[in-house]
């Protein structure tokens, strides 16, 4: 089963890359952008057919490696 996880920076953590992307978008003519925050996306093929268990495994991965909880949040977004 494929489980996906999105890692995003917490609200009060500075995201200079997001800022530069925002500025570039602005320069390209995308004038209606309020803010850009850059994150990470993982697709993990877990050898487990039970969706709850598979999500649990990926959540454990997020806590232990994929996200640094001091600065990042994670969200398990979908299963296939």
């Amino acid at each position: 089963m494929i489980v996906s996880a999105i890692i995003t920076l917490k609200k009060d953590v500075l995201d200079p890359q997001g800022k530069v992307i925002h500025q570039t978008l602005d320069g390209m003519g995308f004038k209606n952008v309020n803010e850009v925050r850059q994150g990470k996306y993982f697709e993990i093929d877990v050898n487990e057919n039970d969706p709850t268990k598979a999500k649990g495994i990926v959540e454990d991965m997020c806590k232990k490696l994929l996200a640094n909880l001091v600065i990042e949040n994670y969200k398990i977004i979908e299963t296939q």
Partner: protein
Amino acid sequence: MKSSVITFPGSNCDRDMDVALSKFGFKNKMVWHNDKELPKSDLVVLPGGFSYGDYLRCGSMASKSKIMHSVINFAKSGGLVMGICNGFQILVETGLLPGVLLRNKYLEFICKNVYVKVDNRQNPYFKNLDKEIFEFHIAHNEGNYFCTKDQLDEIKDNNQIAIYYCDKNGQTEEQYNPNGSMKNIAGIFNKEKNVLGMMPHPERMIDQSLSGEDGSLFFKNLINNLK
């Protein structure tokens, strides 16, 4: 005094650290990241570099490597563990030190000499040092120290801030902050002060004809403190 320097895939300051430690009298051993056992050591150093190509987050992969179980146990039993640059990033990823190192505020790789001020001498690293302001080298892309407000209050209350970025007179204003670090923090301790992480490289300042000698002062003092 015995020291061990851990080499991870992508470490590139491990040899410099070996040269520095040996020059000031440490019997140093190089230890591969895939080893399980640490040799008997009075000091363990995690060197600078780009372990695992800085994949995911700097230091995150290295913090899970085999040798780190022994390093963490060594630190938890009071052993001295020092992380320089990428080594500092690895230490925060292990949880031995609080906080994280974010990308530099202005998105530049910074490679230059800076001044740092030693804030706390009640520890085996800086005890007995006559000097307060040191000129060290920095070379990093992710040295922007960040932690939560609660963590910051805690590290202040426990005197865990080791060194601050400053000018040559020791002024620690924001303008002397090269990378956006909170409170100009360049290095911190754990609560017990046996674990030190810092972005500057003292091992690059051990030769009068190539650099300065502020690193020599640091290492000479360190080995004397451990004797």
